[in-house]
């Protein structure tokens, strides 16, 4: 039988090889221990048995197994550079909405089309994400749609609401998205998946709310006229880069840091401009 200190030794070696997916950790540790114990029963020392176990089940395979399982079970943690770039576009689009709102560079109907298109696009992303068990690319749309809807309840649109606040009406797009998504994908599987993903990486909660960052920047720059408005490009690019790094990085800590750095830097730049 393996002693407690030997068990801890094996556990630390497995951790250093990149094994950090909780549902896999226990069984891989047990698998190595069983190989080692079998060898020890045959008369080998712990050191010799451990060496044999590494020959039978090389540490280099662990990372491959973990990534395969994450992909097969809709738990993929990182994307290729190309995919990351595509998924980061949503942040740029919402950021560009600020220009459409505050400038008169293009005809009004084109600007309105862009603004409504961007907002509807985020609700479509939320619905698509729901149906597909909330892959990472869809998580910012949860934060955006939720906070945007709540924010809009407190907003009045002169031409539409005659000076009154939108109130409950502002929640209707969100409710419609929820009803359509639930009809297309009945049951609570997407939320169970989301829960597993957050349990695997709590930093995802921050990423959900990070989805509102471009719109938040847009609110900071509200009423700022063109060409001063161009300054908004910097925080939007930083936020989009943070999202790109989050999508593409293979290390949990780097993913979290990319979000925190992007939030702090973009806010400092925005505040620096305003004051």
């Amino acid at each position, binding site marked *: 039988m393996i002693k407690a200190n030997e068990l801890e030794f094996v556990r630390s070696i497995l951790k250093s090889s990149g094994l950090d997916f909780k549902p896999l950790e*226990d*069984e891989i540790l*047990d698998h190595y221990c069983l190989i080692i114990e079998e060898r020890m029963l045959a008369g080998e020392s712990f050191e010799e048995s451990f060496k044999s176990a590494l020959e039978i089940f090389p540490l280099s395979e662990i990372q491959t*197994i973990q990534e395969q*399982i994450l992909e*097969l079970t809709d738990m993929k943690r990182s994307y290729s550079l190309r995919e990351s770039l595509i998924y980061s576009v949503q942040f740029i689009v919402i950021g560009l909405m600020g220009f459409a709102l505050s400038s008169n560079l293009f005809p009004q109907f084109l600007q309105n089309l862009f603004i409504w298109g961007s907002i509807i696009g985020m609700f479509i992303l939320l619905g698509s994400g729901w149906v597909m068990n909330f892959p990472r690319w869809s998580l910012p749309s949860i934060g955006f749609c939720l906070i945007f809807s709540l924010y809009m309840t407190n907003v009045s649109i002169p031409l539409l609401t005659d000076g009154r606040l939108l109130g409950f009406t502002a929640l209707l797009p969100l409710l419609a998205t929820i009803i359509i998504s639930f009809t297309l994908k009945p049951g609570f599987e997407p939320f169970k998946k989301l829960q597993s993903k957050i349990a695997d990486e709590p930093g995802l909660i921050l990423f959900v709310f990070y989805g509102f960052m471009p719109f938040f920047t847009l609110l900071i720059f509200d009423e700022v006229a063109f060409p001063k408005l161009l300054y908004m490009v910097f925080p939007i690019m930083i936020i989009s880069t943070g999202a790109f790094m989050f999508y593409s990085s293979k290390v949990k800590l780097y993913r979290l840091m990319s979000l925190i750095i992007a939030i702090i830097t973009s806010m400092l730049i925005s505040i620096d401009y305003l004051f």
Partner: protein
Amino acid sequence: MESNELIRGTLKPIILRMLSAEGKMYGYQITMKVRELTEGEIQLTEGALYPALHQLLNEGSLITETESFNGRKRVFYSLTDSGREKAAYKLSELRSFVAALNRLLDAQPGEI
């Protein structure tokens, strides 16, 4: 020993068969049992076994229960109701395929 290419397509039916016969098993136990039953002809690698187990788990064919053992945890897999149905279907499909493959391999020169 059979090549990985041959085992790949039959891995899930093998796992389902083992679990329908044994009730509940853990990963290492499955590899050892398969090796024992096939006298070493089929050796499941960890790199193939664990992704297949987690995929079956994700599909709802398997459930897990964890037991503490000598300071560590052991994860046992067993079939769900839908997993039992899947096992029956997959095994019958595999048997038909093996029978067809045998007929093909045993065909005489004039029949091909």
